[in-house]
């Protein structure tokens, strides 16, 4: 670059959470702390201001309701309480009074009403209730924001790149509808809900970009999702370089989508199946686009978080999912730690090594029975389409106990004259190293196994991927993982047990190729990964995959494995 050109461009680095390129104008959403002052209104404006109040309240209620289905970390009970607070008759009465008698604006009326209640709570001096104050302040501010913004303040247009501290799943979906092209978050990890939704909606996204909202305020920018980089005020050459990259990406995507209708076979004619992982109801709509006929992993925890646990509520959800595909659905039983239950327990010092998955389910008999009953009845109505997958199996006794329970329940339902599926398939997650090493024995009790590579990586490398300091150790392609997969695959072959992989490794091109090389042709992944995985799998012969997997098993570290794959792909 010649000295005449002043380089304005600035590069900001974060962590890649969803790949892709976005080019557009930055809109920065800071956490503006609004000062709310009493503002007089005219008598003729009363009606209008009361409507602001009611409309905003409706928007907030709707947001909260949607949040339930997006499985926000907040438990549903808390969200339900927030809804009740918004609809509180006393709040409405006081706001009406301030607006129509004192002739003050609705945002201030809401502000003062909430502040009164908050003051009273503060005065009570109770520690327990003090925590609630934060919740109330938060609700108050969101209420005021909604009244003042009526949604138009934030100018999200087609192509906008949003820079924000964090964002709720609901907001992200609504911005997506307005044409948001990229997302930068100051907080949040790659597994935060917003990041997962960005991936599912194919919005390029960067997380953990420090001080983003104080440094990136406006201007034209390039967001490179794969590199986790935001380039602010890029020079023209760079801009046109990225524009052509973006074009290529779009063309490639179109080409990939064409592959979707091709038969799922390797060049040698071996067939493979690519299924979808589903967590949110909102994802069901995408299945057709990717030609996914089976759901290889349905996470059911959302029901737990939203407290929709009655038999009817569960059955309805399961039926909805079954109706959205023509093939089989693998339902994984509630896979959470005890901290997600209503019963409050002493905090565990090591929750990931604690009371979770099958360990918790076998103790919480009522919860388990209810879920099994709902699933078994659905299976009776949809014979051959319901598979049950058990999370977190670490020892043989767990699956034996569960199997007995299922058999008893089936007998009980039959005795009551209910239709059941006597052939219902039962499987276990292989996500704890002990289960992988013991797979041959475990396989005797079940119909199928599904390797959960995310937890398997976490437990094998002893690393919490959410911990920023050490998350680089979270290497799902590490040779040790390949060894455990190989052991499981051998056990499956020997015992003639069906084997699938449903972790992120299956949706990773390198991972998928290696897995097929080990003879695992049943892969389940986030649905938008299906095209690129399929593209690679239909382009090679079986022996190529086999030799690739062989080299993976001989490698000593992840960098080597990545290198082997690059060479293999380019040869």
């Amino acid at each position, binding site marked *: 670059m010649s000295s005449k050109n002043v380089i304005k461009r600035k590069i900001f680095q974060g962590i890649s959470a969803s790949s892709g390129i976005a080019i557009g104008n930055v809109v920065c959403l800071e956490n503006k702390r609004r000062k709310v002052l009493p503002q007089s209104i005219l008598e003729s404006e009363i009606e209008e201001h009361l409507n602001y109040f009611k409309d905003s309240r409706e928007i907030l209620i709707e947001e909260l309701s949607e949040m339930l289905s997006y499985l926000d970390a907040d438990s549903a*009970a*808390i969200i*339900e*309480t927030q809804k*009740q*607070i918004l609809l*509180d*008759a*006393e*709040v409405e009465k006081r706001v009406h009074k301030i607006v129509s008698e004192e002739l003050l604006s609705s945002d201030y009326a809401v502000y003062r009403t909430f502040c009164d*209640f908050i003051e*009273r*709570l503060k005065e*009570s*001096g*109770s520690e*327990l*209730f003090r925590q*609630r104050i934060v*919740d*109330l302040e938060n609700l108050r501010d969101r209420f005021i924001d909604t009244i003042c913004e009526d949604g138009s303040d934030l100018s999200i247009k087609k192509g906008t790149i949003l820079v924000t501290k964090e964002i709720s799943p609901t907001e992200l979906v609504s911005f997506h509808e307005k044409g948001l092209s990229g997302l930068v978050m100051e907080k949040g990890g790659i597994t935060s809900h917003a990041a997962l939704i960005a991936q599912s909606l194919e919005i390029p996204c960067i997380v953990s970009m420090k001080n983003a909202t104080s440094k990136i305020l406006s201007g034209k920018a390039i967001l490179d999702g794969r590199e986790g980089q935001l380039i602010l005020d890029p020079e023209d050459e760079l801009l046109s370089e990225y524009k052509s990259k973006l074009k290529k990406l779009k063309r490639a995507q179109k080409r990939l989508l064409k592959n979707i209708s091709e038969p799922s076979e390797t060049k040698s004619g071996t067939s493979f199946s690519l299924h979808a992982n589903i967590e949110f109801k909102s994802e069901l709509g995408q299945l057709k686009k990717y030609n996914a006929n089976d759901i290889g992993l349905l996470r059911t925890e959302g029901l737990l978080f939203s407290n929709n646990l009655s038999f009817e509520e569960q059955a309805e959800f399961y039926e909805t999912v079954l109706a959205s595909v023509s093939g089989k659905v693998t339902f994984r039983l509630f896979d959470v730690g005890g901290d997600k239950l*209503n*019963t*409050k327990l002493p905090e565990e010092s090591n929750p990931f090594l604690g009371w979770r998955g099958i360990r918790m389910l076998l103790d919480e008999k009522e919860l388990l029975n209810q879920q099994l009953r709902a699933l078994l009845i659905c299976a009776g109505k949809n014979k051959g389409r319901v598979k049950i997958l058990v999370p977190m199996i670490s020892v043989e006794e767990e699956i034996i106990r569960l199997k007995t329970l299922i058999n008893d329940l089936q007998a009980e339902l039959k005795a009551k004259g209910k239709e059941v599926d006597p052939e219902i398939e039962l499987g276990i997650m292989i996500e704890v190293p002990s289960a992988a090493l013991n797979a041959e024995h475990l396989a005797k009790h079940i119909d199928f196994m599904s390797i959960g590579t995310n937890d398997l990586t976490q437990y094998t490398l002893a690393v919490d991927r959410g911990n920023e300091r050490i998350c680089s150790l979270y290497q799902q392609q590490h040779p040790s993982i390949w060894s455990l997969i190989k052991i499981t695959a051998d056990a499956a072959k020997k015992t003639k047990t069906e084997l699938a992989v449903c972790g992120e490794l299956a949706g990773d091109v390198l991972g998928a190729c290696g897995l097929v090389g080990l003879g695992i042709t049943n892969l389940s992944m986030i649905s938008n990964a299906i095209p690129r995985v399929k593209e690679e799998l239909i382009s090679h012969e079986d022996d190529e995959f086999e030799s690739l997997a062989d080299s993976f098993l001989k490698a000593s570290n992840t960098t080597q494995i990545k290198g082997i794959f690059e060479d293999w792909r380019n040869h």
Partner: protein
Amino acid sequence: MIRKKITIKNSSGLHARPSAALVKTASKFKSDFFIHMYGYKVNGKSILGVMTLAAEHGSELELEFDGPDEKEGMKTIVELIDNKFGFTDE
């Protein structure tokens, strides 16, 4: 109008979730419902009202029902409080 004194029995008191349960139940009745505590009087159908009482375990409340279904309302609310709002106690 009927009034009745009652003591909060669950260990965490009338915090958010029990308050929510109380208000939800009370709202099913036509009668007016108020709670008196230490000279405060709040609308028992207002969750913020109930929460701001900050009633802890052992607090004494006086319930007041006034209306066509006051007896039934009182009975239901007393049962709810006596049953610790149906939550397994923490």
